[in-house]
């Protein structure tokens, strides 16, 4: 046998064994390790939300008048909806006092850094602690990073290299100032402020986020990444991301999030909009690890996020991959509007809930164009006293000839105090559609654990192996840098829930 035969194995080992297994061992003793607080002086808006707050944020960002008007309109919309948070999700939480939240907090930095090397050392240390060493990142992994702390983008790496290709990758505040024509054309075309309560709130008060524009025919040579961090107390984070992939372009985008451990619940209400033109492809991956609260359910992030993409052009493709391990509450349904003929939507999700976490997450695939395809793979893992729900819609329009959907939703329960729920909605109005949905619920078998034990593997490691196997189909969708991180997270999140 020659060594070539072993290439696949080596790749597999490189990706999963060396990274995955050793880290599982390492993390056996760790809790939420991103829970530290950075002592950074911040420029903040007072608590509460009114028209003044919206004006304050807009002026802090030096926004043009049309943007302020847009925000105020959204704010009025939100006022109209006030008290009408969506109630249909399988989630229980006390009413949120929107007047007890700070809507703007910016780390005080005298001037905006021109490059990441100029970033405030305290901030840089924060990101280094998170394993996102901005400098190192630049040198080693070739991932362009936009780092957002509380409400503000603190800097974007690789900007120059990207701009040579015509790619715009910057904070959305900068885009509003520098590329108003693109913002005016695309902002809120996929998620209008009227879409839902949290989308309206976000449109009124969003303070930053990432913007990304890939010109026609350009294949973005590196992963683009935004790292979100909530730091300040009593602060909500409302970021807004907009990605536009012009005809025939390609981009892979990564998003990571963490927050300090605090006893209060903090609100995160983001909006992400993706637009894929003809033959364009956007791959959007998230590893969501906001602080989930402590073992008794105290504290943690309320994560209410609206993510939606439109396959506007023919043969375009949008793929969402998410690993959701954090947050006290997750309310999130990354969706795809399949408008172009032959367009494809994908949703791959692993959602882990432990202790008192609640997740209600899934997707919507709206088939409008002809020959559109969608694929949904959802893996839910529940432990402790948590509740984990998959909620998904597959809708096939009357005109959507030859639409195809395949959905697979699997749940794994660890213990008998948690819940796993599956709420798929399948709406088909075209006779040529083929829609298949399958769901299973199971537990880790005693015989599987004994089999591993007999091979010398202890129970904790055995459980981690089995869970990673359960989630593998989704993990395989993640870019390598994230897959490693995600595997670690699975092990940490489920710590102590077995045995």
């Amino acid at each position, binding site marked *: 046998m020659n060594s070539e035969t072993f290439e696949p194995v080596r790749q597999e080992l490189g990706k999963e064994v060396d990274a995955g297994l050793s880290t599982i061992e390492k993390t056996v003793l760790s809790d939420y390790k991103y829970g530290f607080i950075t002592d950074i002086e911040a420029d903040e808006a007072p608590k509460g939300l009114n028209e003044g707050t919206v004006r304050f944020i807009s002026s802090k960002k030096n926004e043009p008048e049309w943007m302020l008007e847009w925000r105020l309109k959204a704010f009025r919309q939100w006022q109209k909806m006030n008290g009408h948070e969506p109630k249909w999700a399988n989630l229980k939480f006390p009413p949120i006092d929107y007047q007890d939240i700070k809507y703007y907090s910016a780390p005080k930095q005298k001037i905006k850094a021109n490059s990441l090397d100029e970033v405030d050392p305290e901030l840089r240390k924060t990101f280094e602690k998170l394993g996102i060493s901005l400098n190192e990142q630049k040198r080693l992994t070739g991932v362009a990073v936009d780092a957002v702390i509380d409400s503000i983008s603190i800097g974007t790496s690789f900007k120059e290299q990207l701009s040579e290709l015509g790619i715009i990758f910057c904070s959305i505040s900068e885009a509003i100032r520098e590329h108003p024509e693109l913002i005016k054309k695309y902002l809120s075309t996929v998620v209008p402020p009227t879409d839902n309560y949290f989308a309206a709130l976000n449109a009124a008060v969003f303070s930053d986020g990432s913007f990304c524009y890939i010109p026609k025919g350009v294949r973005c040579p590196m992963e683009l990444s935004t790292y979100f961090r909530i730091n300040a107390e009593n602060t909500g984070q409302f970021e807004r991301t907009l990605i536009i992939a012009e005809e025939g372009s390609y981009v892979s985008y990564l998003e990571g999030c963490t927050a300090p451990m605090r006893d209060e619940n903090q609100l995160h209400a983001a909006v992400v909009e993706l637009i894929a033109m003809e033959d364009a492809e956007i791959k959007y991956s998230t590893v969501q690890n906001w602080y989930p609260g402590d073992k008794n359910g105290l504290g943690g992030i309320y994560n209410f996020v609206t993510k939606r993409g439109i396959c506007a052009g023919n043969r375009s493709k949008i793929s969402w991959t998410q690993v959701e391990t954090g947050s006290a509450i997750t309310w999130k349904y990354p969706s795809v509007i399949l408008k172009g003929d032959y367009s494809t939507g994908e949703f791959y999700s692993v959602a882990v809930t432990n202790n008192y976490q609640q997740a209600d997450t899934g997707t919507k695939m709206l088939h409008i164009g002809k020959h559109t395809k969608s694929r949904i793979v959802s893996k839910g893992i529940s432990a402790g006293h948590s509740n984990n729900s998959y909620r998904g819609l597959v809708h096939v329009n009357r005109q959507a000839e030859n639409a195809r959907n395949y959905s697979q939703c699997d749940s794994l329960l660890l213990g008998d105090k948690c819940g*796993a729920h599956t709420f*798929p909605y399948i709406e088909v109005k075209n006779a040529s559609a083929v829609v298949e949905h399958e769901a299973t619920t199971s537990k880790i078998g005693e015989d599987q654990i004994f089999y591993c034990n007999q091979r010398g593997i202890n129970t904790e490691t055995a459980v981690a192996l089995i869970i990673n196997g359960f989630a593998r189909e989704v993990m395989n969708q993640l870019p390598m840098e994230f897959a490693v991180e995600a595997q670690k997270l699975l092990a940490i999140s489920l710590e102590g829930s077995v045995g």
Partner: protein
Amino acid sequence: MNAVEYYKDQLEQRVLNDSGSGSGLISLRKKAILDFTRWGIPTMKNEEWKYTRITPLLDKLPELPKNGDKQIPFTVQDFQKRQLPGHELANELVFVNGLFNSDLSKLISKEIQVLPIDKMQENGMQEILENHFDHSSKYLQDGIHALNTAFLKDGIFIRVGEDLKVKKPIYIYHITDARASNILSQPRSLVLLEKNAGLQIVETFLALGQPQNLSTESFSNHVIEIVLEKDASLEYYKIQNDELTNGQVSSCHIRQLGKSLVHTVVISLEGGMIRNNLNVVMESERCEAHLYGLYFQHGKTHIDNHTIVDNRKPGCFSNELYKGVLAGESTGVFNGKIFVRQEAQKTNAYQSNKNILLSGKASVNSKPQLEIFADDVKCSHGCTVGQLDDEAFFYLESRGIPKTKARALLVGAFASDIIEHIRISPIREWVEKLLAKRLEIENR
């Protein structure tokens, strides 16, 4: 006048008139009137009614049958024309406009005891009434169910005593005679199978309107509750082959109080607007239930099947298979819920919903749901929407079978694995004939 006010006034008056009999029932009905006025007629905003609209039908204010009035035009001859195959060897219970009609009914099995619900109390059955009547309202919390309870008139209680296995089935006919006016009929029954008892029930629905005047409409809002004690076994069949002018909500609520066996088949072939609720509540260890359904709609008809299997105790088994064929401009809805409670370890629960769309204007909405709170369980659900298998088509055509015929054969084959679960031969053969006839029509 809106439907809620309209019915509320009449119901209050009726409760007042009936207040002499059975105080327990009166307070239940009063509470139901309150619930009805509070909840109103369910609209599409109600998650459980997301795809089914009944408000336009009830806004036409079909009349409640008059109190104690049995002088309806429906005659013995009318009935004889509509008896189901095999009736010679069956017990027959007949409701006309929701009121039990003892003249048309016949009991040939001595094991069966039948009694009006409002006579249960005076016959020493207070306890049964309290324990079992209207348990369904815990699961069907909406105005339409409350409306049935609030109306409660001439409902019947059917009891099969310990160790009695009834050999001959009960056919229950629900006749809605709307030849004179638009009628709202609301039949209600409660069935108790005591320890080790066995019973087969067939329910069917027939609406009469003036053939020349299709605008005369009717609505039936039916509730049957069935309770099984230990080792009891139930076969429940519902055959819906009704007029297009009839709208109906039909609820069957089954409780398994001991280790027992439930087998249900719901066949919906015709009817203007049908909403079926079928609940199976497993309140004991090692209960077993098999649920089958077939819906074959055409024209502008609408069918909605809601099912709940609630596993509350360990070691239960359930298997559910619902199949749908949607032609014309019809719409089909399937909403199947499986609950597995914390205590219900070692549950095995399976559910499958398969749909075929035969026309470009038909649509289907399917919502299979799992809600699991126990870890040591095996549960799965599956749902498909698609067309007849191209390869099978080609295979049949290559054997010289013309396309239309091939289609009929394939749809027939698709339906047959539901129909074969009807264990009363005359009924099964009848349904097969109805289906064959329908396939001919669809393929013309």
